[in-house]
């Protein structure tokens, strides 16, 4: 197990003679692991950029009056934050980085089914990102990330078309990734790796991909229609010209509500892996977790109307959408209960990934339950467009997706780089993020309940205490995000060698060397066991062997 040197030829290594050849070996790679690294760099860049915009928003909100930004600039700041975070971090985040890296390894394949399409998807992502960036550079966009008409058609004089082009192109990058995941899962599984032996991360990525391929084209055509409306002054969504702005909202949310599950489902998959590994136990209710991912993917397509309770849709469709929204709680709760049941009598070790996983469960429960509040028409109408909604989706998106993303990055960091990160700093930053997150967003529930509307840069005096608390929390949160950036980077040189399987985890990705060889498997493995085949006594053995300071 304990290797003394890095394997001679991992996927990261080259024998390129010149720097230019080295750059080319990365930019023209078709290796899914290298593409994942390219995505990792790009996505983290956009995450920092989106975080910067969020910081500007939070600084402005320290005082009740608008002293840093004008209302117009404030609109552009939160729009930049929303668009960058949603389209360029949350949606591609876990699938493009962890999914690209892990799915071929987990299913025992040498690569994705379509390696060149995979590389192409990265280029599309970069092109889309450049469109969005140039829109920001040339003055930004003020529509909010939802591009609601007529904010985006009649009443916007900002760079709507550039931004839309960015989101449109990025959508095709998502689709390429989704097609690749679906085909890889269907056709590239190693002999013996039946569907019910797949790691749950593969199941959740598969469910995510189904949503991606079914929903993304719809937002593509919708954004295209908005662009056409703006360019030619035709009236497809403009009531003055015969169109219907509600049609935009229906088409937009038909994608964008399932997109919420594109963001969170891969996170569920990561958490299932982490909980099982760090409890030294088989996951509880494997089939239920797998099918609940599929159920979320399917039900997720039927609930978009809950974004439109106050948009003038009929009472009856409001009721139906409200009811179906409640149904989403069932598969979500199944997952949470199964995770906690997995913890029960497990040998739990609080390594950094596990801290993120436990944080995820707590924050996701709060985010999910407040989602049920908002699914009730009466409560939703009361808190529509307030900070309550903002707090709710940040609990799911930041408390859920980002916690899972960071947990997954830490868990598979030794596999990706061959080196261990600093466990002490890892634990500290996970705790800082947890505290900072709650400090930032819990006050927003209160603010929203008290009536603070979202998207305003000025507010009444009495909200200031809570806003200052929230802004202070976001500073803590920012520190929590910067620390991992530092120690993870340092670990590339200073980290101790990880060995093939530092966590003693199951799964095919842990059977290859760290970092994996360029073609993953010399011999395609034959799988004879189910996933998470920790022996029944593994937890007890682990607990008996525990000494103060021992790693697991």
């Amino acid at each position, binding site marked *: 197990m304990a290797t003394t040197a890095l394997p001679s030829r991992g996927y990261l290594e080259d024998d390129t003679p010149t720097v230019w050849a080295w750059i080319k070996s990365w930019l023209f790679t078709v290796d899914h692991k290298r593409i994942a690294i390219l995505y990792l760099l790009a996505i983290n860049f956009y995450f920092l950029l989106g975080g910067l915009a969020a910081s500007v928003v939070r600084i402005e909100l320290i005082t009740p009056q608008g002293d840093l930004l004008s209302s117009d600039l404030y609109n552009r700041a939160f729009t930049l934050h929303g668009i960058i975070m949603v389209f360029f971090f949350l949606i591609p985040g876990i699938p493009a980085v962890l999914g690209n890296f892990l799915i071929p390894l987990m299913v025992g394949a040498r690569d994705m089914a379509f390696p060149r399409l995979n590389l192409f998807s990265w280029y599309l992502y970069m092109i889309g990102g450049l469109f969005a960036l140039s829109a920001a550079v040339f003055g930004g966009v003020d529509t909010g990330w939802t591009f609601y008409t007529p904010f985006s058609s009649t009443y916007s004089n900002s760079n709507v078309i550039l931004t839309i082009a960015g989101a449109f192109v990025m959508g095709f990058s998502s689709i390429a990734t989704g097609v690749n995941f679906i085909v890889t899962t269907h056709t590239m599984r190693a002999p013996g790796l039946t569907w019910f032996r797949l790691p749950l991360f593969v199941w959740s990525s598969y469910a995510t991909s189904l949503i991606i391929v079914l*929903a993304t084209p*719809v937002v593509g055509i919708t954004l295209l229609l908005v662009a056409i409306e703006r360019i030619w002054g035709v009236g497809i969504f403009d009531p003055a010209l015969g169109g219907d702005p509600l049609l935009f909202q229906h088409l937009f949310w038909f994608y964008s509500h399932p997109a919420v599950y594109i963001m969170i489902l891969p996170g569920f998959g990561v958490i299932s892996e982490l909980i099982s590994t760090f409890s030294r136990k088989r996951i509880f209710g494997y089939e239920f977790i797998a099918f609940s991912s599929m159920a979320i993917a399917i039900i997720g397509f039927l609930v978009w109307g809950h974004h439109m309770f106050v948009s003038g849709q009929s009472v009856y469709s409001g009721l139906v959408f409200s009811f179906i929204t409640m149904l989403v709680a069932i598969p979500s709760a199944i997952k949470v209960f199964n995770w906690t049941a997995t913890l029960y009598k497990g040998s739990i070790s609080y390594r950094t990934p596990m801290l993120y996983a436990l944080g995820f469960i707590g924050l996701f429960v709060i985010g999910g339950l407040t989602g049920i509040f908002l699914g009730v028409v009466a409560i939703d109408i009361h808190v529509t467009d307030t900070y309550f909604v903002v707090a709710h989706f940040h609990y799911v998106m930041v408390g859920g997706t980002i916690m899972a993303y960071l947990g997954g990055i830490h868990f598979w960091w030794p596999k990706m780089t061959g080196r261990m990160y600093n466990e002490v700093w890892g634990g500290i930053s996970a705790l800082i993020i947890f505290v900072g997150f709650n400090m930032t967003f819990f006050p927003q529930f209160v603010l929203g309940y008290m009536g603070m509307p979202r998207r305003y840069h000025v507010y009444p005096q009495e909200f200031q205490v809570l806003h200052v608390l929230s802004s202070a929390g976001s500073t803590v949160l920012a520190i929590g995000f910067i620390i991992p950036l530092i120690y993870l980077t340092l670990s590339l040189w200073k980290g101790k060698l990880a060995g093939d399987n530092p966590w003693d985890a199951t799964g095919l990705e842990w059977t290859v060397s760290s970092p994996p060889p360029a073609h993953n498997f010399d011999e395609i493995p034959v799988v004879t066991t189910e996933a998470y085949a920790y022996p029944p006594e593994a937890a007890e053995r682990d607990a008996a062997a525990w000494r103060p300071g021992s790693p697991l």
Partner: protein
Amino acid sequence: MATTTTTQGSEVQGHGAHADHGHAGHGRELQHHFETAQQQKEAATLGMWVFLVTELMLFGGIFMAYTVYRWAFPDIWAEAAHHLNTPLGALNTVVLLVSSLTVALAVNAAEEGRKQRLIRLLGVTMVLGVAFLGIKGYEYSEKFAHCAGYETPIAWATSGAPLGETECLVPGRAFVFPAAHGEAAADAHHEVTPGQSSPYQLFYLLYFIATGLHAVHMLIGLSIVGMLTFMAARGVFTSVYSTPVEIGGLYWHLIDIIWVFLFPLFYLVH
């Protein structure tokens, strides 16, 4: 785990495998990350089908908009369809259906390894595709000529006979809300003058977007078939390996099937 020893075998090629896909040990057409040709074919076919689903969802947005506005303005929709050139649309449908037949025959020829027949059939397909675009282009230019006040595009180019009864169906800045002209819809074409709008423009906006997007797909389809022809001429396809022809053919059939829905929705349903 013998990490340092097991990696040796494949690493002889090392980076070279990145560059040339490492075709050692199997046929040229089998990519290195697949185990068998069967697996590669399954992957390619499934990938194409999944992609076709995304295409259907893309057009689905337009069909949704069509349904919503047809529901909102049934009279105008029924009227507007009469202003399309149905004979040309029907001719285009025939052209496209025949091209689907030639593609299907081409796939068959590829599977049988009959190279000359394959190239000929792909060539005919491209001719039919270009013919479709040509007829479509003529229909478009007819609408633009009417806006400019001429009977036909040829009359427009040669400053020939002006249009007796003016109508402009090309949507643009001067868009008119159909409902605002609801009562006037029946005799609307008496009111409008060249360059101005008509109450049918919402219909024609969707018509231009849907058929325009379809034409873009046709251009992509033409370049795919062109590439397949080139590959066929180079002798890439054999009776054991013809997957690209098959999945290229699937894409062509998608273009066909979308038109099969567009044609009745815009031209025939009154």
